């Protein structure tokens, strides 16, 4: 336990990186999820096809495979495109960026399904009523769809967020100094990997418990005025 205390700063820094990474990739996944849900619900066959291919691809490929592919391959591809078109010079993708991009991309697919289901749960009459009042599309979105979509999407969103938080542990494989990476380094140097890995598990449990409480609070807030059976 003394060793944990000695390395508390390193563990704390790692926890912050993990939280940053989780929040940034969650924001990216929400954005991609909204676009994906919009595409799946649109009338265009092409957009439906692209969104369908996206969700199928993500369901088929493990996250670590995509992450390593993006980290090692994405950089080369971006630089090859840059070289061929002359639009940009040598770009270096940091491990952190690759981590956020991959996790955001993966969970964007799950968010697509979440948001699609939530939008479909909103009675069509309400959207029609919005149109009848002469609301613009973005007004219908912000005033009618969004507030209800959040409520319908919350249970599945909570689920996705908890899985996402746990998935961030994988970025340690590509060398991001997140919680797992830092704890592994510290544990190895003092030959107490069990103690340090156990500490990591406890920190993850605390993060899950906090997010659970936070999302419950949000659920209460967005369900205000809804009668519950």
């Amino acid at each position, binding site marked *: 336990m003394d060793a944990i205390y000695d390395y508390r700063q390193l563990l704390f820094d790692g926890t912050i990186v993990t939280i940053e990474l989780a929040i940034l990739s969650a924001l990216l996944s929400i954005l991609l999820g909204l676009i994906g849900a919009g595409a799946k619900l649109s009338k265009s066959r092409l957009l439906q096809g692209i969104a369908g291919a996206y969700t199928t691809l993500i369901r088929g490929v493990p996250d670590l495979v995509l992450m390593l592919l993006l980290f090692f391959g994405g950089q080369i591809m971006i630089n090859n495109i840059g070289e061929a078109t002359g639009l940009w010079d040598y770009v270096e993708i940091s491990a952190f960026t690759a981590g956020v991009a991959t996790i955001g991309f993966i969970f964007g697919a799950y968010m697509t399904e979440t948001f699609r289901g939530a939008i479909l749960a909103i009675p069509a009459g309400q959207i029609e009523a919005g149109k009848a009042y002469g609301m613009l599309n973005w007004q219908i979105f912000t005033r009618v769809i969004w507030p209800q979509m959040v409520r319908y999407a919350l249970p599945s969103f909570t689920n996705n967020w908890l899985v996402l938080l746990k998935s961030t542990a994988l970025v340690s494989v590509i060398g991001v100094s997140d919680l797992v990476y830092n704890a592994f380094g510290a544990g190895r140097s003092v030959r107490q990997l069990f103690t340090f890995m156990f500490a990591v598990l406890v920190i*993850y449990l605390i993060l899950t418990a906090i997010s659970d409480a936070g999302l419950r609070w949000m659920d209460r807030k967005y369900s205000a005025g809804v009668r519950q059976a």
Partner: protein
Amino acid sequence: MAAESETPIGDWLVLVSENYSPLDFMLVADNFDRFLWGAVVTLELTFLSLLIGGVLSIPMALARAYRHPIWNGPVWCYTYFFRGTPLLVQTYLLYFGLGQFEAVRESFLWGPILSNAWWCALIAFTLNTAAYTTEFLRGAIVTTPFGEVEAAKASGMSPATMVRRIVLPSAFRRALPAYSNEVIFMLHGSVIASTITLQDIMGVGRWLNGRYYLAFEGFVTAMIMYMILVFAITRGFKLWETHWLGHLRARTETLAKPAVKAAALPGASDFR
């Protein structure tokens, strides 16, 4: 890079593969046997852990569902712990962590099992999947229609017979669609084996990329192989569902063409 071949077509393929194709497919073809062995490791780890974890989860789910006075609490703690933490760290804890204790290093289990990456991965994956399976099986048991339970009681079944013949079969059926997600999740999770030196599909992909200093070939091959496995599993579960849940399908179409769609899999969002 690929091995020399004797036929002109082979030479031409190697030339194209090395110089013009975006991916050196001949290199992948030359190492394809390694990938197949990798697939064996992946499938072994995935299905053995699902099998053992599934068997372990049945008594635990019953203890949770019927609120067993002694076991309900410990099982809840176990599932909460394993569901709330990353599989990667659980695997590291077992594989890298256990050696910290001298008692473990000197026990008879150390040599054959606990210092072995394959066994550590299997144990970690089993404990992980057992925790998830316990919880959704519990959900399925709790939602057993009360009429079924009443009918069993009215027929004079003992509690044990009722669980064995009524509650569990009915719960398995309801849990089946969600279970296909668990299987796919476990397959996805099994790539973690490659981080503790095992040569599963991903391990071979990483080996190939490291050996020939490549960025794409190994990972893209791994990606395609995982996709094939996932589609095969999804397909298999659809067949299993039509078999097991056939009596629950809505009879909307003609008898000649059974409505398969009613038992469609849940979307990707149901994935944990």
